[in-house]
């Protein structure tokens, strides 16, 4: 057992840190991972720039086959990259890679050659078309219909909560090809969002940002070459997607680490009535508690990475870290708000604001961390079930 990183790994980490320093503006306070904050007008150009530059360095799809533009690097490299990007709150890291992973796993040679290289070059963004108004946690309740015709599939229906759809070129859409079989009647399509019949509506979140979309499909014709995997084989892709979703909880924890560091800094520098906040025993206790929870979560993350690198099943560990990470992030946000007291309420563009209003943002945004990408309740079910603790189903 050895918890250290190798020389090589540390060297790569330093390279990534240098990259980040060059990419983000000075005094960058960071944004939360994922498409949510990236969609902000003041952030999106940086996100695009970062995505391109990551592509130029060959850092998108590090572990993918060289034939499609990847580097065939070992998994640890990708882990370190993602750790550093989330820790520093760099925009531009999103779900596109996860969708590419599906194409690499289930796609034809032709599809891989067509879709993967532009992603690795940082030229296109993808999004997910899974949830519907009546299909949230119950993913198999998807109703969006895909009817097979001679030369294409025709899609009718709608998706919701598609993060970043308004910036994306392609959407991986889960559609119903067999209305008579709930679990075995789904197929997955790669839909060009410029197709005729596709319309979108951005949805405003309680954070004041609108990164989510409803995506409407009105007789959208999708070429048969864009069917991913087998017709009615969507269940296998879904399962793979859940299992491969290893990073969400981890992102959230590295992100929380940044908030903690900002708070510690704030407490050291801020005096109230002559005393630094950092000397207040109650604040010390709170900060320490947060540090402990984050550290423990990150260690769980190391285990997750290690399991992944050994090609061992990761559903249980990734579910655990998702549940833990979401909860930790919410507690960190709340404690941060408590430490800032009345100041925590101020928006980032308000006079008197502290730490750029980041605590307020994450206090609102972190509500979603136990919901998006699978709720904590569903994740706990995975942990308890046959992939984890082996408890019996009802």
């Amino acid at each position, binding site marked *: 057992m050895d918890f250290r990183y190798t020389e090589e790994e540390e060297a790569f980490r330093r390279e990534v840190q240098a990259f980040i320093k060059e990419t983000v503006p000075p005094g960058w306070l960071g944004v939360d991972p994922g498409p949510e904050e990236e969609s902000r007008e003041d952030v999106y150009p940086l996100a695009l720039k970062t995505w391109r530059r990551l592509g130029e360095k060959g850092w998108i799809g590090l572990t993918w086959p060289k034939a499609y533009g990847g580097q065939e690097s070992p998994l640890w490299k990708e882990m370190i990259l993602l750790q550093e990007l989330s820790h520093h709150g760099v925009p531009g890291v999103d779900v596109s890679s996860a969708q590419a992973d599906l194409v690499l796993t289930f796609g034809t040679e032709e599809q891989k050659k067509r879709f993967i290289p532009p992603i690795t070059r940082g030229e296109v963004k993808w999004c997910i078309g899974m949830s519907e108004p009546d299909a949230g946690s119950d993913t198999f309740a998807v109703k969006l219909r895909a009817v097979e015709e001679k030369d294409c599939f025709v899609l009718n229906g709608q998706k919701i909560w598609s993060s970043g759809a308004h910036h994306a070129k392609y959407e991986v859409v889960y559609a119903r090809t067999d209305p008579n079989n709930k679990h075995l009647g789904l197929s997955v399509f790669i839909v060009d969002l410029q197709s005729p019949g596709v319309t979108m509506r951005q949805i405003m979140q309680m954070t004041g940002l609108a990164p989510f979309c409803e995506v409407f499909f009105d007789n959208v014709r999708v070429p048969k070459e864009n069917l991913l995997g087998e017709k009615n084989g969507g269940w296998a892709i879904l399962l793979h997607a859940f299992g491969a979703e290893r990073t969400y909880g981890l992102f959230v924890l590295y992100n929380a680490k940044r908030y903690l560091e900002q708070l510690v800094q704030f407490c050291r520098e801020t005096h109230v009535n002559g005393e630094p906040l950092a000397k*207040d*025993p*109650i604040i010390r*206790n709170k900060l320490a508690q947060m540090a402990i929870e984050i550290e423990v979560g990150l260690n769980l993350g190391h285990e997750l990475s290690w399991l992944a690198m050994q090609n061992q099943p990761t559903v249980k560990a990734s579910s655990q870290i998702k549940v833990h990470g979401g909860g930790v992030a919410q507690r960190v946000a709340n404690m941060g708000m408590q430490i800032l007291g009345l100041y925590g309420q101020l928006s980032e563009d308000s006079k008197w604001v502290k730490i750029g209003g980041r605590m307020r943002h994450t206090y609102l945004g972190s509500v979603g961390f136990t919901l998006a990408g699978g709720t904590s309740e569903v994740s706990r079910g995975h942990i308890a079930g046959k992939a984890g603790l082996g408890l019996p189903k*009802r």
Partner: protein
Amino acid sequence: MDFRFTPEEEAFRKEVKEFFGKELPPDWPGVDPDQYHEDAFDHIHEFSKALQKKFAAKGWLGLTWPKKYGGQEAPLWKQMILEEELTYRGTAGYDAYQFLGGCGDIVLEFGTEAQKEKYIPPMCRGEVKWATGMSEPNAGSDLASLQLKADLQGDYFVLNGQKTWQSAAHRADFAPVYCRTDPNLAKHRGISIVIVDYKTPGITMRRLTQMSGLDAFCEVFYDNVKIPKENLLGQLNGGWAVVMSALNHERTYGIQLIVNIKRDLDLLVQYCRETKVNGEPLAKNALLRNRLAEMAIQLEVARTLGYKVNSMVLKGQNPMATANQMKILGGIMTQRVAILGMQILGLYGQLGPVGGNWKQMDEKKDKWARLGGRMKHLYLTTVCNTIAAGTTEVARNGLATMGLGLPREPKPAAPAKK
């Protein structure tokens, strides 16, 4: 709206307080509503029996019961005040209000005239102790799965099977025992209650030791025990109605847990004021102040909610949703006080004799124990408070479905036959 008690009520409370001032030794450490100390320690049990006779002499047993059977027909508020005072002082003998009272209530509700005349007067005179026979190894939260058989053979029910987790069984004279009288009916429809005299041949008991070190529970075994059929309480196979009523009578248990644990919080506050560490009283430690105040707040809020239960009962409203809330709070908060107590005592919290502050301290082994080892006892025994008398999970289920109107979970399909 008025959160005060009337002068009459306050006068009664004063009378009760004076009584305890006289009857209890000045350093009485207090027993808990779970009555485990009385069950486990003979000397406390004897004291409890004697005290109960004194309650009886004051007419405080069966306060609200019909005078015909030896009760006082006093208003319910009188009983509430008595319970509150008993609980806060941790008076022994007040299991009267849990087990005895609960049993008496169901006899009065479901019993025949003959049964009422037979069983209630001795209860009012403080001459008897009762237990309750509900749980079995395979019937805990799922009480309806109970299996102890009661076969009607001629003039007798013949009982075979076992009960477990029986508080006070080894001290008791009688118990209503929940039996299966018809295995062919649906689970909860084939249950009957029979009143068992524990001296009946064929009954054996085995004491169980809890993690607190107290052997306060029993397993009770029934081997062809013949109980006269006159001892059937309520309808044959109508036991489920009695179950519901019995649960209803336990409604104050959560409140009692909260009232009782305040005594321990007060102890901790006192301890912090008197104890100095490196010259500084613990009471000046910012973190401890915060935590003690937080606990005091939680107990105060919970106690206030408890008044709502009583208020609803007095108005003839169904208090079960609030009673469930109190059960949940009682369990969780007593555990929190215990955890806090252990945190405050630090390493010292680990020390002390079984049962806590009852002065059976070993001069050597317990030399350094603080607060008589009360916190250690609490820490071990409160584990049970979210389980006994109905788990917190069951309470939440009841609160959600019956209290908030949420739909029940659909029953799973019957398990496949092996």
